[in-house]
């Protein structure tokens, strides 16, 4: 029967070619949709690299007050650190789940340029506040006060892309003009700061101390992240706000929790994802309807053949199996063509996503196409096989 199936498919190569082309295109559409969905899921499953629970974000705006701004901030940080219930305080140029970002590709190592890299200017306590997981070297601290270079910590993704298998710790980066240098002292596991679905983009944390006049202007606004003891409530929040008012003498300050920011950002990124999911669903339905129509037409064209086969001793199930078998062979050929195209994506680095994402998407698209074709072939062939053979034979 298998030889018979292949003979039939080969002898009908012209009409099967069109069906194969339809399946190949369907596979490709499903593959692209799957890449986008799988990529988001893949990112979601990756470690965030930090913990956002019990971290509060204070945005402090000095307004027109430009006198002693750095001094006031230094005192404020010290006061906050000394408050009971506060575990750690850090001063940072940007925070996780922020709607803005700062990135550059100015860094170079020898002749190699860095990828587009997220930049965070932070102080020594960032590691404590966000619970960053240092996997090589160390986080920067007062030992780096005397360093003639900027001290930085990178994430593993940056290290992998810049140095491959080599250790990143101790490496010195420079810029195009070679007028500044950055020394890597440590590597953190990951830092997915965008959202739960964001990728672990290459990231650099640059040490910035309040006394660092080179990197701290007098007009800068301050963002503080404060890790509080678990269970700290509104009382502590009011206490901290009062302290800020007292130290800064009237600067504006507002407070959010990182958990709230995470939820807000999630809502923001979920909207296009839901839209994408709906578009994906719409495409899948379209593909299913297209395939169903083509297969329904094909099988209807072959009603007399079905009647003949029934007359010669085929059971209804044998007819269904035959059509299903034919479709699976044609689908396999169409999918094989689609896979040949799809495999070019990771090879050529299209979209720049992780390789497992492409392979998962290929698997998903393959399963979807096979399921769709099986359903679309089985139903019409079952209906056709259920007709009395005499009726099918009259269809010719």
């Amino acid at each position, binding site marked *: 029967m298998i030889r018979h199936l292949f003979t*039939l498919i080969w002898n009908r190569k012209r009409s099967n070619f069109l069906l194969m082309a339809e399946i190949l295109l369907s596979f490709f559409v499903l593959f692209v949709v799957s890449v986008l969905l799988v990529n988001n899921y893949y990112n979601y499953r990756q470690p965030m690299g930090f913990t956002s629970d019990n971290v509060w974000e204070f945005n402090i705006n000095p307004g027109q007050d430009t006198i002693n701004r750095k001094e006031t901030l230094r005192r404020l940080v010290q006061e906050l650190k000394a408050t009971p219930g506060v575990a750690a305080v850090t001063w940072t140029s940007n925070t996780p789940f922020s709607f803005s970002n700062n990135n550059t590709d100015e860094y170079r190592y020898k002749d190699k340029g860095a990828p587009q890299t997220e930049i965070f200017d932070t102080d020594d306590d960032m590691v404590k506040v966000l619970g960053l997981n240092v996997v090589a070297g160390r986080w920067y601290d007062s030992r780096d006060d005397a360093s003639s270079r900027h001290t930085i910590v990178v994430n593993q993704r940056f290290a992998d892309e810049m140095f491959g298998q080599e250790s990143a710790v101790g490496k010195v980066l420079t810029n195009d003009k070679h007028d500044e240098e950055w020394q890597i002292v440590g590597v953190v596991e990951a830092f997915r700061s965008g959202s739960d679905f964001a990728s672990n983009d290459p990231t650099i944390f640059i040490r910035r101390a309040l006394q660092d006049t080179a990197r701290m202007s007098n007009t800068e606004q301050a963002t503080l992240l404060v890790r509080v003891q678990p269970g700290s409530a509104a009382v502590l929040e009011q206490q901290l706000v009062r302290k800020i008012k007292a130290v800064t003498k009237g600067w504006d300050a507002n407070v959010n929790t990182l958990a709230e920011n995470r939820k807000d950002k999630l809502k923001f990124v979920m909207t296009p994802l839901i839209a994408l999911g709906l578009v994906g669903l719409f495409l899948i339905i379209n593909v299913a309807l297209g395939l169903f129509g083509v297969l329904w037409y094909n099988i209807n064209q072959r009603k007399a053949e079905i009647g*003949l086969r029934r*007359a*010669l*001793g085929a059971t209804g199930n044998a007819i269904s199996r035959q059509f299903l078998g034919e479709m699976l062979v044609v689908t396999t050929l169409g999918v094989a063509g689609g896979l040949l195209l799809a495999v070019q994506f990771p090879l050529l680095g299209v979209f720049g996503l992780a390789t497992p994402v492409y392979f998962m998407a290929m698997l998903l698209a393959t399963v979807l196409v096979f399921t769709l074709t099986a359903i679309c072939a089985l139903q019409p062939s079952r209906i056709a096989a259920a007709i009395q053979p005499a009726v099918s*034979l009259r269809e010719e």
Partner: protein
Amino acid sequence: MENMLTQTAARPLPTGAPLTATSQPVIHLRDIEKVYQTKTIETVALNRVNLTINKGEFVSIMGPSGCGKSTLLSIIGLLDEPTSGVIELDGRPVQSYSDKELAYLRNQKIGFVFQSYHLINDLSVLDNVELPLLYRAGVGGKERRERAYAALDKVGLSARTNHFPSQLSGGQRQRVAIARALAGRPEIILADEPTGNLDSVMGEEIMDLLLGLNQQEGTTIVMVTHDEQQAHKTQRLIRFFDGSQVS
């Protein structure tokens, strides 16, 4: 039963025909009715048909178009279900048979020859002839080939095995259809106007083939035909009119 036997009484055998027919009934129809029903019209295709066909008989069925001949053949061949009545094959009623059992009977016992050949155009002559054996358990690829070649040899088409139906004449196509029926070595061949689409010479050829099968192999043949001359070559002629058996 007596009435039925009277109605279908055998005519004398044509000259030269061997006595292959026996009195052992192989097909027995009792009070068969077939009614096609639409929302507005009810058409009686067969009206209380009683018929017995004995093993080795060559029976022809004649009647004007639309009188129910092909419907009767479809019902005998288990391709269609009667609205009422009983069909017995080898003394066993088949109404209660499952789809699988009916398929088995069609495959093992019955061979079909259709007016419009019903060959699959995308399969070669050889593959077409092999078809009934594909659905027969225990027949391997080699045996299938051998039996298909033998059947094609019998109908004089062994030189056309790799041709496709579209490359053959009408008579050749019908011979392929007969070879397909023969490959399964059925006890019964049901032929629905097998010469209807052929010229007289080709028609004679096919008729001779069927007569040879009946006389040499003892195959029971039921043939629907419009050709009086051919009908008279068979052992028994049954006439139909408006769904009823009239002689």
